[in-house]
């Protein structure tokens, strides 16, 4: 099994030669599903080059690079990380809608920024280091 880290989750997936995987796993990892038009979300399809398509498998690394997202791997090639494309981050920020997130508090209770809609929020970082 290969470990694939995405900005919000981690997945254990059967792969070969990098990130070739079944369309079902590709959808689980990326949120995009394989259709005749390419890799699709409800609002958008991105055509896949023929070189990234096999018999019942997809090269997720090639697809992710086509989206403009970084694809990096451990030296052993057993752990991969797919990062958010720079354009996607910039577009989200430039829209000025504060990107939502869910993080745990000290007791492990998940808290989402969107729960605070209707209040002004001072969102600040800190660290012990």
């Amino acid at each position, binding site marked *: 099994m290969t470990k694939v880290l995405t900005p919000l989750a*981690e997945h254990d997936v059967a792969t070969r030669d990098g990130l070739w995987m079944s369309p079902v796993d590709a959808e689980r990892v990326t949120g995009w599903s394989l259709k005749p038009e390419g890799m699709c979300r409800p609002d958008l399809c991105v055509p896949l080059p023929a070189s990234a398509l096999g018999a019942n498998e997809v090269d997720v690394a090639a697809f992710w690079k086509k989206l403009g997202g970084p694809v990096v791997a451990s030296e052993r090639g057993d*752990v991969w990380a797919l990062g958010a494309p720079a354009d996607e981050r910039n577009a989200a*920020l430039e829209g000025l809608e504060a990107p939502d997130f869910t993080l745990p508090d000290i007791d492990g209770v998940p808290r989402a920024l969107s729960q605070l809609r*209707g209040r002004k929020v*001072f969102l600040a*970082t800190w660290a*012990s280091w």
Partner: protein
Amino acid sequence: MWQQLYAELKDNNFMVVAVAEESRGADHARPWIEQAQSGYWQLIDTEHRLEDLYNLVNVPQAIWIDEAGRIVRPPESAGSTDHFRRMDLATRTMTPEDQAERLAARQAYLDAVRAWVRTGEHALPADAARAGLPKVTPAIAEARARFRLGVWLRANGRAAQGDLQMAEASRLHPESWSLWRQAADLDEVGKASGPDFWKRVHALGDKPYYPPPRL
């Protein structure tokens, strides 16, 4: 750190969300959080997700978000200043003048937050808020992915491989103090503010470590 501000303003439809960028995990942040006895949210961000989403480079940085969930001030230094750069490293003290200036700058920042909550002052129009956003470059996006991979490798008993990924992340995104300091801290607690940190700070020359907010 923000408890007094929160206590003063909590009845004005206001919330503080303090996010610990802490890859060592919740237990490492716990003593600070318990001591703060805060009524506001104290969240733990082991993978620095917030820094990825909001393109942050240091702590403390703050973003102001209005009632409709819109960013009205882009990420800015949240009350910290560069006076520490002039401190006497042997005694770890600042001159009384620097201490006074530092406190005054912090006070001015907190007063600006108060004014915003009470009257809306200092909220930027959309164009100005947008203009203040630093751009995410492909190198920064890759740095985030490598950092995420590095944190995972470190957390799974592969420290040396994790460090390589984190070093590459810092090389790709040298403006991020958080990436560098978190990696140093994971290597050894205290290293994030050790001699290598000061070397990096000195190498800034005239550039700020905490760019002052443009209030």
